[in-house]
């Protein structure tokens, strides 16, 4: 039923749109889409995963690392024909810095900014308060000032509620947003004049499916061309399906559980009700040794994950660290763990559960997100395994809200967590500094009440270390500390599983090329590079046209109704006598 | 308005000999009909000032056409309805409406309802329905079964075993009526208030039941108030008759007096329409709208339909004006013959109570 001969690519999404205001949109789906509408000054190289030029052709740093100069391309035009200049970049950053309402989405990138100025049309200078290692990962959408300035002024305080729904949007990216039907679909049209060259598809549709199984069925029927966040069962079955290609990418996410080491505020005031014995590192280490990450991968993720060691997923080869040989003191070894505990005076009680030297029974609460199947399953495995080393787990698989309350009130012993790691891992490390501890109970920035001076020093050092290799080395050391302290314990890196129709999409670029993913790239490579398959990508490819469908439906209904009617008709003539 | 509100029995010594066991003392019952919140649609004066006595061992028939308030009066006597004015006296004491008092009162005074179809719980067997009163007052007793069987055979359901485990829908209308009667008699009440107890029975069965009532009266001294529109029933068993019209007793006296020589035009009309009444003038079918307790006519409440007034006879007797404008006094309830009619009073003044001026 498609009328235009435009090439259309349809993606099944499962998240609703919060806002298309690039200053406030936070949800993954919207930031992902906005990435195709607005360029950022730097991007990620799909081959190497390294920072790569985008709006900025090149950049320089001053010696102290506090002044950054970005040189912009001169061939970038917004879709309304205006040229993108340094002024637009400076205005965008400045607005985020100065306007609280505009800082909701990207405020973290400008936290250390002192000032942003447009030196000339093609040069932007950013002054920093302190060194900031994320300067080459400034994933901030650059908006046209001439469009947004009036909006910001007009909306004032209400700017955060501005939905950015004046379509088509004006941006410099490879696509323009042209339609949004809430809860149904989002339409993007290719920007034919994009400086990188036009995208392969003329139109992108993001169709909303609130039920993942329905989305997979839609892929089967050809209603959509791409589905992400698949389960292993779905992958197995889709792999065997014609015209469908499955992409299993290295995970960006780590799945972890943290152990309450005794929650404290920044002033050192203890709060919460974590099990006191957990302040003992030996116990924490024994717990980690009692858990087989490999088994979690097999049972919890049905093999679709990689067992973890360090903190950063292996996909980021430079920053990834994994305990090898001597370092691997916490590998799965229940015997050793038992031995350690015996030595440390954790004697088994009559029921086989150990008691701490202080006389506390080792019955530990474990909070698990009930809405994350992989966590639920991993939680069950952990509970069963820890029984082997004499620790009883009270498995509390709960609503995320309850879990989050338990975490912030420090009323937990073991709790699940997990982060998606960006190419620049700064943020996920920042949350374990002592600064992330709560100023008063309930205000924690991080997720583990972890505080270690050595770690903090290393963190500061990596921030100002602009040499990539040196920085990676520091990052490795930080991971080793995290590993040994056994407060933050990474279990696995779940694979990213997605599938697309090969009869719709001829080719598509992964990021990174090896083991990379399609959905949720840090750049816009996938949809920009996707090429339509020969024979067209009719959205109804696998199905039957609307008319026929309705026809069949009506016929079936009429038959059913008629059958029922006749059935009763017969009877009622018999029964007529009464 | 009325000089006669406090009943003053003319023959006090007759009263003293047999003080009434049950007495309605200027009872009024009004219903505020309508269900809309806050919105009534007028008041139906179903019983509008009735004095009535039932002496021990006496059977009083309450006759009148449909809707005149017989059932309402009967229910009021049992305390099922609270009078809006006046009171009910039992053995000279006013009826109290606390649950405990009502309970012991109802141990001794029983009601037989008008509608035998509805008076039995369709999910209870005959046995359960009859034993209900016993259970309420005495709990489970050992001789329950015998008492139920005795009550059933009394009521003419013989042999009783044939009926014990039947459900109401397995009975004929007459049988149901008799089960209800058995249920009332099992408590061996002193007073029976029966509302159309034999309406749905054919003549032969009806006779049986009436005989039973007379027997009980003779053997146990049962008193009864029987509400009915069947004048024959009054003739068959009642000592006295009270004729009701639109919430008032309009004529009162012994059965012979009232039925043989009716004084009130309404009573006359009632008797005249009986198919084989043999009334010389032929049946007097009353015309006009049926009486409506929400709109009680002024003056004599019967005057809009009164054949005596219509025929001009009242005019001739010189009471026509009074008929239209003056409400005859409420009759007192004693054993005397009384009529609430201006015309009859003018005609045979001796029979009438003191009139209001």
């Amino acid at each position: 039923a498609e009328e235009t001969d435009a090439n259309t690519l349809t993606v099944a999404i499962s998240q609703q749109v919060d806002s298309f205001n690039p200053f406030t949109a936070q949800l993954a789906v919207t930031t992902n889409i906005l990435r195709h509408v607005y360029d950022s000054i730097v991007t990620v190289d799909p081959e190497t995963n390294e920072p790569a030029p985008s709006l900025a052709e090149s950049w320089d740093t001053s010696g102290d690392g506090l002044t950054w100069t970005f040189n912009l391309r001169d061939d970038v035009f917004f879709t309304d024909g205006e040229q993108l200049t340094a002024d637009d970049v400076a205005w965008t950053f400045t607005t985020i810095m100065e306007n609280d309402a505009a800082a909701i989405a990207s405020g973290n990138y400008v936290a250390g900014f002192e000032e942003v100025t447009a030196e000339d049309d093609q040069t932007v200078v950013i002054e920093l308060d302190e060194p900031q290692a994320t300067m080459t990962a400034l994933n901030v959408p650059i908006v046209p000032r001439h469009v947004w300035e009036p909006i910001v002024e007009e909306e004032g305080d209400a700017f955060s509620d501005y939905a950015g729904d004046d379509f088509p949007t004006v941006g410099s990216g490879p696509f323009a947003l042209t339609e949004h039907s809430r809860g149904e679909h989002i339409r993007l049209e290719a920007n034919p004049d994009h400086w990188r060259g036009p995208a392969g598809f003329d139109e992108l549709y993001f169709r909303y499916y609130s039920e993942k199984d329905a989305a997979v069925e839609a892929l089967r029927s050809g209603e959509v061309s791409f589905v992400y966040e698949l389960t292993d069962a779905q992958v197995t079955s889709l792999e065997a399906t014609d015209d469908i290609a499955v992409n299993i990418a290295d995970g960006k996410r780590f799945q972890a559980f943290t152990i309450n080491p005794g929650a404290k505020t920044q002033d050192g005031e203890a709060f919460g009700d974590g099990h006191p014995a957990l302040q003992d590192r030996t116990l924490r280490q024994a717990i980690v040794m009692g858990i087989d990450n490999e088994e979690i991968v097999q049972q919890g993720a049905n093999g679709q994950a990689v067992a973890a060691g360090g903190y950063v997923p292996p996909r980021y080869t430079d920053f990834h660290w994994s305990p090898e040989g001597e370092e691997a003191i916490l590998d799965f070894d229940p015997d050793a763990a038992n031995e350690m505990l015996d030595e440390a005076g954790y004697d088994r009680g009559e029921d086989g559960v150990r008691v701490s030297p202080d006389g506390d029974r080792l019955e530990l609460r474990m909070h698990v997100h009930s809405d994350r199947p992989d966590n639920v399953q991993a939680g069950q495995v952990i509970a069963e395994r820890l029984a082997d080393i004499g620790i009883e787990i009270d498995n509390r698989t709960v609503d995320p809200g309850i879990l989050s309350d338990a975490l912030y009130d420090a009323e937990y012993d073991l709790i699940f967590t997990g982060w998606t790691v960006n190419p620049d891992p700064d943020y996920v490390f920042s949350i374990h500094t002592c600064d992330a501890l709560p100023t008063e109970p309930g205000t924690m920035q991080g997720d583990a009440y972890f505080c270690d001076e050595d770690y903090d020093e290393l963190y500061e050092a990596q921030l100002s270390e602009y040499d990539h290799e040196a920085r990676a080395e520091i990052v490795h050391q930080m991971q080793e500390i995290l590993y040994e302290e056994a407060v933050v314990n990474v279990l696995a890196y779940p694979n990213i599983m997605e599938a697309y129709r090969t009869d719709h999409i001829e080719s598509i670029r992964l990021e990174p090329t090896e083991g990379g993913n399609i959905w949720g790239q840090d750049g816009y490579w996938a949809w920009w590079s996707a090429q339509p398959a020969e024979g067209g990508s009719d959205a109804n490819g696998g199905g039957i046209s609307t008319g026929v469908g309705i026809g069949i439906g009506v016929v079936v209904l009429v038959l059913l109704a008629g059958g029922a009617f006749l059935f009763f008709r017969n009877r009622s003539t018999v029964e007529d006598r009464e | 308005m009325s000089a006669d509100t406090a009943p003053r029995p003319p023959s006090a010594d007759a009263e003293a000999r047999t003080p009434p066991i049950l007495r309605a003392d200027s009872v009024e019952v009004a219903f505020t009909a309508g269900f809309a919140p806050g919105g009534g649609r007028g008041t139906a004066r179903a019983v509008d000032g009735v004095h009535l006595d039932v002496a021990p061992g006496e059977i009083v028939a309450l006759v009148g056409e449909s809707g005149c308030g017989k059932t309402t009066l009967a229910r009021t006597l049992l305390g099922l309805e609270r009078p809006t004015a006046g009171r009910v006296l039992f053995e000279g004491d006013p009826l109290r409406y606390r649950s405990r008092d009502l309970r012991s009162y109802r141990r001794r005074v029983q009601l037989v309802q008008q509608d035998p179809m509805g008076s039995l719980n369709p999910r209870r067997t005959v046995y359960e329905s009859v034993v209900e009163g016993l259970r309420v007052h005495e709990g489970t007793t050992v001789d329950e079964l015998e008492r139920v069987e005795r009550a059933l055979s009394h009521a003419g359901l013989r042999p009783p075993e044939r009926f014990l485990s039947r459900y109401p829908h397995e009975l004929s209308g007459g049988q149901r009526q008799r089960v209800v009667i058995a249920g009332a008699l099992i408590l061996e009440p002193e007073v029976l208030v029966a509302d159309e107890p034999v309406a749905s029975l054919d003549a032969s069965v009806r006779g049986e039941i009436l005989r039973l009532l007379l027997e009980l009266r003779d053997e146990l001294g049962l008193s009864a108030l029987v509400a009915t529109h069947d004048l024959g029933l009054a003739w068959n068993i009642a000592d006295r008759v009270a004729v009701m019209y639109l919430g008032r007793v309009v004529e009162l006296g012994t059965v012979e007096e009232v039925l043989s020589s009716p004084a009130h035009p309404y009573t006359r009309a009632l008797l005249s329409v009986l198919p084989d009444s043999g009334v010389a003038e032929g049946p007097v079918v009353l015309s006009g709208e049926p009486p409506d307790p929400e709109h009680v006519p002024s003056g004599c409440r019967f005057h809009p339909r009164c054949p005596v007034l219509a025929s001009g006879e009242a005019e001739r007797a010189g009471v026509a004006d009074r008929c239209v404008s003056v409400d005859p006094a409420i009759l007192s309830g004693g054993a005397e013959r009384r009529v609430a009619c201006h015309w009859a009073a003018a005609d045979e003044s001796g029979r009438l109570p003191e009139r209001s001026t």
Partner: protein
Amino acid sequence: MTTTPIEADGPDGAGAGELPAPAPPGGGHRARRVITYVFGRLMTAVVSLFAVIVAGFFLFRILPGDPVRAMTEGREVTAEQRAELRRQFGLDQPLWRQFLDYAEGLLHLDLGVSFQYREPVVDLILERLGPTILLAGTGTVIAALLGLFLGSRAGWNPGGRGDRVNTAVALFFWSVPTFWLGLLLIVLLASGRGFMPGLFPTGGMVDPGLTGPLERALSTAQHMVLPVTTMVAVVYAQYLMIMRSSLMDEKGADYLTTARAKGLRDVLVRRRHAVPNALLPTVTLIFLNLGQVVSGVILVETVFSWPGLGQLFYSGLEVPDLGLVQGLFVVFAASVILMNLLADLVYPLLDPRVRP
């Protein structure tokens, strides 16, 4: 969860009980009585609504979890960003203050702002109301018609083959979870696997990219088939059961013999005489269900990605988006109250015996 069957009584139960004695015609106060009646019902409705608003507000405040934390979970946000969000949503205010603000907003028909969509809840709801009414309305009407139709047949001849088959089928569908049935239907009829062609779309309301009104209408119709089927299958049993029992009660009525004696065919006896009477108890049920459809289609809408209020609620619940969820709560409750009010007002028109 499916709604439970209701055989509600008429206004104040008057429909079920014995009725007051007939009033003679020509009551001059009739108009006033009607007004008093309507006014009384309105007042009750307003009081209920108020109670619901208060309940709704506090009910969701006691839900565990912090919406701002939940919204920013897994994202790289700073404490300032969180504080800003909290300030924007008014969550930094004391509870009573929040309630007063909320209540004041309600007076201007302002249900507050959705946390995740950052749009006035009223706008969001209005946007989704149409699709929900379309889906739920169609479903309820079909379910009611089907249920009443089959129920009247089953109840006319209880214990017969038609009765047994029909009630068993209806109860089977009543007993299966909505999402289970919905997903099975998708797999069987929409995905085009095996030899079955994909007859219907797997979700959504209209194919994207269609512009012509006719095209869109057809596409919507096609999209509606599966969700409506699911909804109907799951709920029609209660109409069937109620109609059935109500008709069984009515079956012995004397006026039916009158109708037969007049020479009416059996079908007409049922249709013209028995059903109108048996319908009375079901009317309140239908209205009550109509009120609940708005909230009752959460599952269907979620499974079939139908852009309606149910789906909105589901998405709001995940966050939890307090503004949205409590706004929807008020709307859901209000729709039930409204429909109950309508039922109260319509009932007397249908049953002459309870006219004020």
